[in-house]
């Protein structure tokens, strides 16, 4: 079972949970979206703008290492991505999280592929998804304007 635990909390994840890439205040961002994980009360707000065909994003929130690391890895991956690439990544991440940890993780997810280990823990899938769901909503707002 410890093997399982280390598969879940891989070095990359614990590392991202500490580094918190992209964390900052969402104040002043035109398009933000707030998500709550109802079982633990964890919250995240993601701010997004699309500028000259590139996504800029920021996130603020508190949560477990999985959700924090997920936000960090997402920020690293998608800083400066095109909106189309961002949507593709969000979809790929969701599909991976529904995989129950089976199959190959999609290459386009970069570091974020380590979250495939989380997909085997049904109760933690929500934690990993939280920032991606918030980004999807914030991005939709940004694109609608």
């Amino acid at each position: 079972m410890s093997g399982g635990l280390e598969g879940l909390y891989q070095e990359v994840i614990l590392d991202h949970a500490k580094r918190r890439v992209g964390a900052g205040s969402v104040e002043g961002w035109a398009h933000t979206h707030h998500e709550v994980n109802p079982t633990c009360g964890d919250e995240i707000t993601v701010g997004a703008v699309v500028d000259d065909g590139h996504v800029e994003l920021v996130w603020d929130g508190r949560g477990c290492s999985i959700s924090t690391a997920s936000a960090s890895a997402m920020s690293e991956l998608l800083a400066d991505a095109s909106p189309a690439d961002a949507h593709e990544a969000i979809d790929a991440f969701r599909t991976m999280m529904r995989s129950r940890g089976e199959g190959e993780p999609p290459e386009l997810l970069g570091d974020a592929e380590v979250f495939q280990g989380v997909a085997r823990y049904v109760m933690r899938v929500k934690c990993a998804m939280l920032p991606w769901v918030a980004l999807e909503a914030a991005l939709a707002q940004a694109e609608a304007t």
Partner: protein
Amino acid sequence: MHPPSTERTDTVTRADFPLLAAHPERIYLDSAATSQRPASVIAAERAFVENDYAAVHRGASEAVGRSTEAFEGARERVARFVGAQPNEIVWAENATDALNIVALGISDASLGLGPRELALKEGDEILVTEAEHHANLIPWQRLAARTGALLRWAEVDDDGIWTIDALRAASSPRTRIVAFAHVSNVTGYIAPVADVVALARELGAITVLDACQSAPHLSLDLAGLGVDFAAFSAHKMLGPTGIGVLYGRSELLNALPPARTGGSTITTVTMTEARFLPAPQRFEAGTQPVSQAVGLGAAVDYLESFGMQRLHTREVELAGLLTDAVAAVPGVRLLGPRPGAARASLVSVDVDGVHAHDVGQFLDSRGIAVRVGHHCAQPLHRRLGITASTRASAYLYSTSDDIAAFAAALGEVRPFFGAGR
């Protein structure tokens, strides 16, 4: 001793039901009240309790994950079984509770605790039929009393049957809700659902289907039928007591405020305010009937593997045997559709000169369990000029011998009590 032999000629599934298998002498013709549970349902619940039981949706552990998957898996199976999406299926205590969730939610909306489009105003109308079960009548009476709305109803004829014309006659441009039973638990009458839905759409009214007597017996496609809400109980469809189902069209279900509130229904709670999750969670306050959901899932599996089409064919046969049995006995009045007309596999009768309680007692002494009383439909019985009736209802484990025994015993009732001498 009583006459029926304990060998049966067309026993298809009786052996699957521990109570029936252990008591071959018992003739169970009360499935419209509650059905027996097959071994697979009992075993599924037990295996869950003995291996995977943990709080659902609450915590991070593997056991919680397994419990939650079993619980949500049952929801998916029930949804597929009635032609709905999983997030349109809400667990309730029973069908009565499910109907009350709708009525109390609309009541809250009317008090300003929910969206305006669901609110009732003074003078708005709620439309039911005179044949409804109390579970689909009193909640609407109370909703009317809370909001100043008026209750209207389609009248039934001398056989206890209402028609779409009677319903239309009782409707008005102010009709906001139309609530009706798919199949009557007294007469076995099958409602013209498509016509009712069309009428309700014309009026801009919400439809609420009491599917208690249809979900166990018919292949339901709730989305296809186009009703807005529907309610049914597990214990009438081979599942456990303690769990019922509310179906709601996703859009409406998410608009309906939850009248019963508590843990697991919310996103954020402060001392002054609570924000609710989307359906179905917003309605599932507190610890849910978890092992019962697993049992209901197994019941659905059993019904699907038997085949709902095969069940229907079988029940048409059983309904024919039941009406024949009644027709053969003088002084017995059949309520509901005439013999030959479509009906569910149940018959309710009035025995001339013998009170239903006495009829039931006599049948019981012959090992035959039927239901006697008003079957929670007092207005219908009053309209038919009686206070109580005797109902025999069949299900997939019923055999032609069961019905033959019923017919024979029914023939002895009036002589025993000296009626019509």
